[in-house]
């Protein structure tokens, strides 16, 4: 059972997992970051109150977040096919991962930005800052340490989801764990993949915390 081809498979799986996780996180942030910012600014107490948009965003985020990932994974298969041309493999998995992660990231971003002292935002408004300048020069830079911690949490969560995608042939370490460890009772493979997943999560989490601490000028 353990031969060089298995080693190659696991190395390849690790790279697939990293590819899925990082690409999904990146795309999910491209969607989730503006969503999170809009959730804050369009709030009744925000700098550009927009009641309707705020309500719609909140509903969309809550609905997407309440669907279990496994169900979402299967439900979006037609969309996945439409975008990537296939429903299996690591590139295909990116589609459901992004859909699941973007609203989660929006909430993380929202809570990070809400931590910024309103006095600082008020001060920048008193200097004549436009809403865009308040977002780009005050909210995001001031929330940076918290946003980085949020990014570490998001990445590790997406990594966990990506392993789940193995059930529908999503590629990566999760896929290997299910195919070899679960269906073929190869406990050794199962243990190795799980250990690798734990290691990757550890590295992302630690790195995130370190960078955040380094960037924090408040202490």
């Amino acid at each position: 059972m353990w031969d060089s081809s298995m080693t190659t498979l696991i190395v390849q799986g690790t790279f697939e997992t990293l590819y899925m996780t990082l690409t999904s996180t990146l795309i999910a942030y491209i969607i989730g970051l503006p969503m999170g910012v809009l959730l804050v600014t369009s709030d009744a107490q925000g700098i550009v109150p927009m009641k309707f948009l705020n309500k719609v965003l909140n509903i969309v985020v809550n609905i997407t977040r309440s669907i279990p990932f496994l169900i979402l994974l299967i439900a979006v298969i037609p969309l996945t096919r439409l975008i990537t041309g296939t429903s299996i493999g690591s590139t295909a998995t990116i589609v459901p991962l992004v859909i699941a992660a973007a609203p989660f990231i929006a909430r993380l971003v929202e809570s990070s930005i809400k931590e910024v002292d309103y006095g600082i935002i008020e001060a920048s408004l008193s200097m004549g800052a436009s809403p865009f300048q308040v977002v780009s020069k005050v909210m995001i830079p001031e929330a940076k340490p918290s946003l980085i911690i949020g990014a570490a949490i998001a990445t590790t969560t997406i990594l966990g989801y990506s392993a789940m995608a193995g059930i529908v042939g999503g590629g990566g370490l999760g896929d290997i764990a299910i195919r070899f460890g679960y269906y073929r009772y190869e406990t050794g493979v199962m243990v190795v993949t799980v250990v690798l997943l734990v290691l990757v999560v550890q590295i992302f989490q630690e790195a995130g915390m370190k960078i955040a601490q380094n960037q924090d000028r408040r202490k």
Partner: protein
Amino acid sequence: MRRVRNIDNKTFQKPIIEIKDLVKTFYPKSGEVKALDGINLTVNQGEIYGIIGMSGAGKSTLVRCINLLEKPTEGSVFIDGQDISTLTEKELRTTRYSVGMIFQQFNLLMQRTAEKNILFPLEIAGVEKNTARKRTTELLELVGLPDKAKAYPSQLSGGQMQRIGIARALANNPKILLCDEATSALDPSTTQAILKLLKEINQKLGITIVIITHEMSVVEEICSHVAIIDNSKIAEFGRVADIFRNPKTEIAKKMIFSQGENTPVVMGENFYRIVFDNKSSSDSVMAKMILETKCMVNILHADMKNIDGITFGQMVIQLPEDELSASRAINYLRANQITVEEVEGDVG
């Protein structure tokens, strides 16, 4: 209500802030709150105008109406002759470049160095980079912190943070500087230093300053004019010296008295507050009065202060119950141009 003055030491006075019939109503869930009710106020160019009131009187809302951080429910605000409540958002932002503001909690950007904090309003206004950098250096000099350029706010003391706040507020050469309880989070000696800096800025750069405070000592220290806000309305306003000499409303009297560190003077029967100014404070009027009228005076409190360049002495005395000798004493003092007024109840 305003004291009519026929002679003013400044010959040319141009109104820079005019507030007309301002009303601000908030609608929290619990109902309707009128934070400001029919405010009329004019601040002339070059003045240091104090707005004083107890907490909750509406003074912070009032200062925020001057740069429209709070939108007035009714009424209008004129800056340099222009009604800013009619401006578009974009025009309003440009107007705000010329109205600097400093805060009680400083509100510096914690993720930026002192230098970058001062650079911030210049970035907003789109000032060219080299010009902006030069301006930042100048401002650090002006507030006396050239060596703190690279320090983050968390590495600065309260007084230093407020100095950076002042430098930041002055970056775009404003005509007006609004100070919202700017010294309330600072200790007395730092407060003195910050007030001195504000006075220098007013004199050197000719910037009109509006100071919101709950401390009469701040007003006495640097303001030329004052408006006392009570219950969402202006109770009394005018030159600080005039109001100090002759407060008309209860709230004004209360503000003037309650400033002292240890002045909860117990008020009783026949208590009078007397105020001396320049001339009379050098004369030994009290001693002469006692000798001439043979009136037994009980002195309860006395202090001296410098208000807008005039030295004032203030005293709280108790006169004998015998009406005749009490009125003799009062008449003697009034004949010597000293303000005498009876104080009742627990003014302290």
